[in-house]
């Protein structure tokens, strides 16, 4: 687990259960400020009085990208990312990271298009720079194919990706079961490389990473002035949100370096995404399924469906199974909430619920989340530990 570097100089391992420790010290069991004097005691920063202390809960794609955006918008802040899982153990590490948007029924289309465009443009400039390899971002071309005519031949994101057009008859011959297709060039953003790169950026701007499981957002009061909730499925507990549910996705990561194109069935159920060090074959969409263990029968089915689209995959080797739980919601939750309990107040910015579309939307939504954080920071005025809002 990441070593925490304290500004005091040494490094130390964060205690596994703060609450347990403090129960021992104080004999108290409530989740109030008491239980968390440990937090302040463990690492206090030498901070000027007007620094806004921001906690980002969650170190997946949303947590880290929001942690990168916040210092660019919020003057004089400190950012601490707190999570029980860091890369390579997050859901974002399982996803293939291809930029093909998912449609959210409850989010206005113009917003989805804006976020996708912001994300695409941002990653496109990284892909064309010397940073591309370190960031794990690069261009990939391919086809999205349909067994029957789609209701929408030209999706809302067609002019954001590059070179979007309908497939020709000659190209469709490669897929005899399919009657229509779209060809385009998009980006792939590889979690296991991109997330560590984001972590570096967070640390470079003075952010801290803290491995700790948060059971209740109030644990962060009063050590932090603003909390950004990027806990994905964790929001069922942390935000009491019953509208978020897992959509289980199983994938195979295989060696097939001759594959240079993505192939995606329009249903989204079967796909082949070539990466830098492996090819992702998918997948499944199992609503409400929390099971993180790979299922052998499902793996065989995924392999067989992908081989039907791309017979050369029969020669693929070194097949590994992975499972991720998409944090699915009818719409992405990007919202401020002021938590109140007795006389305590805790501003929270929620940034979660991206389902299948995390990579496609992340930069646009992270920018928006950072804007919301800035609004909270402005509202705080010049903060003292017990300032009223």
């Amino acid at each position, binding site marked *: 687990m990441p070593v925490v570097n304290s500004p005091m100089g040494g490094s130390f391992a964060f205690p596994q259960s703060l609450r347990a420790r403090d129960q021992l010290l104080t004999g108290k069991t409530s989740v109030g400020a008491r239980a968390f004097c440990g937090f302040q005691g463990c690492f206090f920063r030498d901070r000027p009085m007007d620094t806004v202390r921001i906690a980002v809960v969650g170190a997946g794609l949303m947590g880290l990208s929001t942690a990168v955006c916040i210092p660019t918008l919020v003057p004089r802040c400190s950012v601490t990312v707190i999570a029980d899982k860091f890369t390579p153990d997050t859901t974002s590490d399982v996803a293939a990271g291809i930029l093909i948007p998912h449609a959210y029924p409850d989010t206005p289309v113009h917003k989805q298009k804006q976020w996708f465009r912001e994300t695409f443009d941002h990653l496109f400039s990284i*892909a*064309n*720079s*010397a940073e*591309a*390899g*370190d960031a*794990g971002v*690069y*261009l*990939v*071309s391919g086809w999205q194919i349909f067994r029957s005519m789609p209701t929408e031949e030209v999706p809302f994101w067609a002019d954001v990706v*590059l*070179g979007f*057009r309908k*497939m*020709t008859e*000659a*190209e469709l011959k*490669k897929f005899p079961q399919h009657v229509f297709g779209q*060809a385009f*060039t998009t980006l792939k953003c590889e979690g296991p490389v991109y997330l560590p790169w984001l972590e570096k950026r967070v640390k470079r701007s003075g952010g801290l990473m803290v491995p700790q499981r948060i059971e209740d957002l109030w644990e962060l009061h009063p050590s932090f002035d603003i909390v950004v909730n990027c806990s994905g499925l964790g929001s069922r507990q942390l935000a009491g949100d019953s509208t978020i549910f897992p959509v289980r996705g199983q994938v195979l990561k295989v060696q*097939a*370096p*001759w*594959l*240079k*194109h993505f192939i995606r069935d329009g249903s989204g159920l079967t796909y082949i995404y*070539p990466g*830098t*060090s492996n090819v992702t074959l998918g997948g499944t969409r199992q609503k409400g399924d929390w099971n993180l263990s790979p299922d052998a029968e499902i793996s065989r089915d995924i392999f067989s469906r992908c081989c039907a689209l791309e*017979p*050369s995959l*029969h*020669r693929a080797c070194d097949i590994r199974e992975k499972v991720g739980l998409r944090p699915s919601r009818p719409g992405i939750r990007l919202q401020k909430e002021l938590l109140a309990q007795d006389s305590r107040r805790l501003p929270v910015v929620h940034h979660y619920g991206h389902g299948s579309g995390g990579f496609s939307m992340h930069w646009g939504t992270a920018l928006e989340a950072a804007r919301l954080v800035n609004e909270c920071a402005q509202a705080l005025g010049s903060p003292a530990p017990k300032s009223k809002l």
Partner: protein
Amino acid sequence: MRVVVIGAGVIGLSTALCIHDRYQPVLQSLDVRVYADRFTPLTNTDVAAGLWQPYLSNPSNPQETHWNQQTFDYLLSHLHSPNAADMGLALISGYNLFHEAVPDPSWKDIVLGFRKLTPRELDMFPDYSYGWFNTSLILEGKRYLQWLTERLTERGVKFSQRKVESLEEVARGGADVIINCTGVRAGELQPDPMLQPGRGQIIKVDAPWMKHFIVTHDPERGIYRSPYIIPGIREVTLGGIFQLGNWSEVNNIQDHKSIWEGCCRLEPTLKKAEIVSECTGFRPVRPQVRLERERLRFGPSNTELIHNYGHGGYGLTIHWGCALEAAKLFGEVLEERKLLRMPPSHL
């Protein structure tokens, strides 16, 4: 009926396979052998990046366009089989870049999805203002030669490593038909002033994030003298050297710098790529492919000779069409010698 194929590059091996598969079923006595002094990985085919792409201008011999098409179709039909990777074959898309607008190439309807580049795509390449995007094929020389060797070995075709000093030596050794696939060194067996080496040097790097080919063109400098980046199955080939008349087999440091700087300027992400190897090869340059018969007479007997060499920088691109044509010429020989009862099946 003893057939000796001289040369074990892509032309020699594919011609041997084509002839064997066409005529062995109808001619039991068919005995095909391959003689060469260099086999994979030491042939010029092994150095080639393997991108299927003819020259931009129309060939002086219109048959070559047909042979290119036949090769593309043949390879495309193999793409759908599990064997594709074994053959070193894969689909690949990419960019052709120019400093100014140019007419579409004659092969635009052979490749898949040919279109012009959009302004946003051109933004990626600030030195260029016009270009094409299309989906083509990679046929990796080394892997393909290994595959061809395996197929020929299965069929009982014999390989013999030797330096052939003269056609006469092979004729007197008992060959009824000689297929001359000696590539750039064909002049050693029979002087050919139209044949010249087009020396190329390439750097192979590890850059697995590159999924597209990028080929630049500079009409002032000429073909293959402008940077190109061609991903293969595992490694990426960087090139941009074409020196007519240069026989030096040694990697040249100036050429290395020219390739490296040109390609890194084109694709800055390559700066972090690790260099795996570097090699030199010789394109067998000729105004057109020499694909024709010749009759030799040594002593009392006639030996039929079929030339199949001079494929320049597009050997992999055109090889199967030429193999089919060579097989057709071979069929004519069999007919003349009344060895075929039936007319040769249409190829």
